[in-house]
């Protein structure tokens, strides 16, 4: 180590390790791009075939070459929104709890325990949902119009548990990045600690908390296995005259559960059918892309505001 530090700095243009790494990264990026182009290219036939009806049609009978993805899109959005509705009201207060209320020593422990929740494989959430949650939902709602415990609601509930740690830890990070002097200034004015949280920490962490929620949404949309096991995987389910709640209590199909089903094997032989499956993958990609873009825009927008803030403070030290 000593002679490393003592060695003179030389130009290292002929550095093969760097060169090889850079080439490898370029190759990888190209591959990723190719994969994206492949998905888009392969899905082209179904858009030619069905046109806008791929997004708006609600019938999916591959034998009749009918490919309407609306029920799957609805299913994905429905389970994710149910998950957010349940998870966000717990996750945000829980993040305040870890970031602001717990003593520093307990904070990382509590956060670690909550992060354990994120480490459990999704198939195990699926197992728990199949064995417990499905029965509970059935018992709770069977007096009305439920035929089995498999439903969009069940899938949404298990997703809520799965995205809870994601949102909590990201929101906690956002809260912790609010400068301590800001809180100190509010306390100095005589606001109590809770008012400081409500009027100082939360508003300033709001962009980060919003991003946390959006990323939680992305995770929920992309989750396959746990949803697959309890969503019922029934094609063509859309809310009808009986109302939204009824539809949530019924079975459904999501983009991921369709892609994860045995139909994929079947589809590969048939160009149009495979193209329809790739179309589903593309819609899924667009939903994820949408959440990532939202997060990026939020980050840049708040960085812009924050930058001004830092810049003015910078003049102080100059």
């Amino acid at each position, binding site marked *: 180590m000593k002679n490393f530090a003592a060695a003179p700095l030389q130009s290292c243009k002929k550095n093969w390790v760097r060169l090889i790494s850079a080439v490898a990264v370029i190759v990888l990026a190209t591959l990723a791009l190719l994969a994206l182009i492949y998905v888009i290219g392969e899905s082209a036939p179904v858009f030619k075939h069905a046109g806008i009806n791929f997004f708006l049609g609600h019938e999916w009978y591959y034998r009749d070459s009918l490919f309407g993805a609306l029920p799957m899109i609805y299913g994905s959005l429905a389970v994710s929104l149910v998950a957010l509705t349940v998870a966000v009201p717990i996750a945000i207060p829980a993040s305040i709890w870890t970031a602001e209320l717990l003593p520093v020593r307990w904070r990382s422990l509590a956060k670690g325990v909550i992060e354990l929740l994120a480490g459990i494989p999704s198939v195990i959430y699926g197992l728990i949902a199949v064995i417990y949650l499905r029965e509970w939902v059935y018992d709770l709602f069977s007096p009305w119009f439920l035929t089995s415990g498999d439903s969009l609601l069940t899938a949404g509930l298990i997703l809520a548990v799965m995205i809870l740690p994601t949102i909590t830890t990201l929101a906690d990070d956002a809260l912790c990045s609010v400068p301590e*002097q*800001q809180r100190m200034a*509010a306390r*100095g004015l*005589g*606001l*109590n600690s809770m*008012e400081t949280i409500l009027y100082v920490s939360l508003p300033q962490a709001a962009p980060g908390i919003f991003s946390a929620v959006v990323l939680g949404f992305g995770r929920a949309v992309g989750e396959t296995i746990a949803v697959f096991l309890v969503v019922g995987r029934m094609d063509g389910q859309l809310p009808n005259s009986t109302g939204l709640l009824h539809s949530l209590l019924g079975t459904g199909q999501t983009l991921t559960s369709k892609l994860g089903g045995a139909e994929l094997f079947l589809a590969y032989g048939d160009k149009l059918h495979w193209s329809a499956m790739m179309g589903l993958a593309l819609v899924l990609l667009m939903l994820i892309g949408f959440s990532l873009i939202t997060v990026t825009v939020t980050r840049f927008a708040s960085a812009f*505001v924050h930058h*001004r803030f830092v810049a003015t403070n910078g003049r102080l030290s100059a």
Partner: protein
Amino acid sequence: MENIIDILPAPRKCMTELRKEKLNGSTPMLEVNELSVSFEENIIFEGLSFHLKPASMLGILGPSGRGKSTLLRCLNRLIDLSPNAKVTGSIRFRGKNILESKVDLDRLRSEIGIVFQQPVVFPTTIAKNVLFGAKRLQRLSRHEQARLLESALRDAALWDQVKDRLHESANRLSVGQQQRLCLARTLATQPDIILLDEPTSALDKKTAREIEQLLLRLKCRYGIILVTHDEEQARRLCDEILRI
């Protein structure tokens, strides 16, 4: 440790009858006795005693790192927010020792306002910054809010500069303006005592003079404790000086 209170030969006086009355007969607003602060093993200062009379200014002088800012944070118990600090002694304010545990700290902090060494503005508009504490400590009608906003900004000598941009971001203000904004924010909560931590350290001479004028005016209405590095400034402004 030297702990001398200089009574200056000719303290500059604010010539109101009211104030003279107060000065002569009145008891101190704040009495500090044998105050010591340590962070874990590290003793910052020990056995500090002084008092602050109504409508007067006490200057605190001392080398950097001596604990001046820490002392100010003791006086309204903001120091409680640093869990490793240990404070002993007594601070009497309104006849009570505020170091006791049953004091309403949030109330105390609104009565003893502080302006930090570095201005901390909230990332919102100028108007909202000024009313940030005030409108949450009491219920104010829109009309009262507008009045308070104006009077606080006038008292902080900022009104003329910002009256046309009250709803712009406070981050765009210069540092000197930000410092006065923080002062206005503190004044708006109507404290009895104001703790000022080097309010002119980041400013050029001219702006510093402006702030000094401002402080001389404020002195008639508030008890002020001023931390400064500038011996001359302390002599110009303060009735008493404490060296730590």
